[in-house]
């Protein structure tokens, strides 16, 4: 795909100073001061209800900040949304549309235009290019309602990509996907970052699947967002605090890293507990719950 970098600045993709968000009287999170560099793949992690999606919506200008300032691609949130590709969480679940994959991707180019504008050949070519990049060109004529969750996810990513975004935001893109579809999605994200230098943000539970491609993470801890590079995030003590349960980082002889709950009998065996499971473990609390947690994880 050809990309036009019309962006005047090569500054950070997101810059936050003492940001906070309230819903009613309830502060969701506060005191967020961090900078996400351009061209990075960043996970937004935290327990359920920590405000991960809220952070993403604040970056898109859909939810106002109650305090502080935020710059997204060098402008106020919402001002440069035409340069941002957004794939919300509900995508794979709720979309039961009769539109075809191609029509859906085309709306990423034409969907905001009022007035009478027939689709041009260039637009069609652009949509095809995006679908080809994502590997769904052969599904162009199928209805969304006929596609599997994984393919619908890829249509949504193609729709987000078709306008050549500088920043791609995905909310729980791996949820509800089977292992093979998760791998494909992760590979696509890595390719976008490597070939176009695209900045990518991913709200995620499953850190393990993303570990190989992540540059860093925004973690929502104790009601405050922080940013850290990957090596700093992969600190057992931090992760333990983050998820409220004992978490260990294991490096295999092959050099792969895994985040696992600290269970003496299983930690050495490289079994992959994802962060979502880790988040669930916290409800059991204490070492006595290990047997129960094991049962749940199997």
């Amino acid at each position, binding site marked *: 795909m050809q990309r036009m970098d019309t962006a005047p600045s090569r500054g950070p993709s997101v810059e936050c100073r003492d940001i906070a968000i309230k819903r009613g009287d309830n502060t969701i999170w506060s005191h967020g001061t961090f900078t996400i560099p351009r061209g990075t793949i960043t996970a937004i992690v935290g327990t359920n209800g920590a405000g991960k999606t809220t952070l993403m919506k604040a970056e*898109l200008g*859909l939810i106002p900040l109650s305090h502080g300032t935020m710059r997204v691609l060098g402008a106020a949130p919402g001002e440069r*949304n*035409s340069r*941002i590709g*957004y*794939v*919300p969480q*509900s*995508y794979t679940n709720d*979309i039961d*549309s*009769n*539109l*075809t994959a191609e*029509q*859906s991707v085309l*709306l990423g180019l*034409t*969907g*905001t*235009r*009022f*007035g*009478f*504008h027939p689709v041009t050949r260039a637009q069609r070519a652009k949509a095809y290019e995006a679908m080809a990049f994502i590997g769904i060109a052969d599904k162009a*004529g199928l*209805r969304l309602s006929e596609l599997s969750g994984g393919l619908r996810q890829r249509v*949504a990513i193609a*729709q*987000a990509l078709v306008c050549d975004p500088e920043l791609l935001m995905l909310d729980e893109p791996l949820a509800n996907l089977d292992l093979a579809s998760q791998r494909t999605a992760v590979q696509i994200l890595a390719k976008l970052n490597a070939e176009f230098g695209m900045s990518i943000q991913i709200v995620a539970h499953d850190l393990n699947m993303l570990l190989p491609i992540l540059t860093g993470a925004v973690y929502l801890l104790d009601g405050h967002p922080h940013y850290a590079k990957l090596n700093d995030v992969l600190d057992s003590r931090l992760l333990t605090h983050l998820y409220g349960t004992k978490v260990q980082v294991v490096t295999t002889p092959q050099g792969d890293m895994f985040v696992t709950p600290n269970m003496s009998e299983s930690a050495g065996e490289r079994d992959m507990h994802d962060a979502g499971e880790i988040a669930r473990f916290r409800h059991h609390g204490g070492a006595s719950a290990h047997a129960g947690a094991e049962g749940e994880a199997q």
Partner: protein
Amino acid sequence: MNSFSYDPAWAETLTTPFMLNAALAGLCIAVAAGVVGYFTIARHSTFAAHAIAHIGLPGATGAVLLGLPVAVGLGGFALGGALVIAALGKRASEREIATGTVLAFATGLGLFFARMSSSASQQLQSILFGSILTITDDQIIGFAVFDAILLAVITVIYRPLLFSSLDEQVAQAKGVPIGIMNALFMAILAGVITIAVPAVGTLLIFALVVTPAATATIVTTTPLRAILVSTALCLVSIWGGLVIAAMFPAPPSFVIVTLSTLFWGIAKGIESLRHHSAA
């Protein structure tokens, strides 16, 4: 009991002025219902379409009670109901108990108004089940003007409306004013229902606004083609209804709804057969 017999003079009946009016009204209604039906399904607003027609009933009988034209009361109540549903947003479709209760109350209120005056009582059946054979020249001019406005508005908002129907969150992030889109669509839907009620009445409106569009989305994939097919199915149902009602002593509304349902049933049947053979 009336005898159900074939009327050999049906071709002459078709040439009468009231039949010509009915045919022209049918054309206007088919265009309006065909255009809006596709979006009603795409936006998952089919229950809202049903609800708006029922909410319009007390408006219609109330208007007769006050000596106003039926369309004024019906349109006013339908528009009000539509804007309330739009304000409730997506949650409205999840509030089936609340919506259903309001519908029942509205229908009851419509009956109450009808009983308050003998003229409203006489009109109640035509409001509930339609009276396409009594449509006047003035009504047809009104329908045509409405169609012209509808087509102009839809042409302008076509893509943003489609985008917000597909995924409201993405459309909103990209700058589509989804609140305005929703209110505008609901207002359009109220208008289409107001002009479609004379054909089949408030109770049978679903078969004219939603069913042909549902059939069209089964047989074709692009929105534009679905709109054209849905308009054609509407037109065949209404005109077919008029012809068959001229041949046999059946009310046109009944035949219109029957044809519309039949087309949908056939499309559904063929679709499931294809799925079986593919699997």
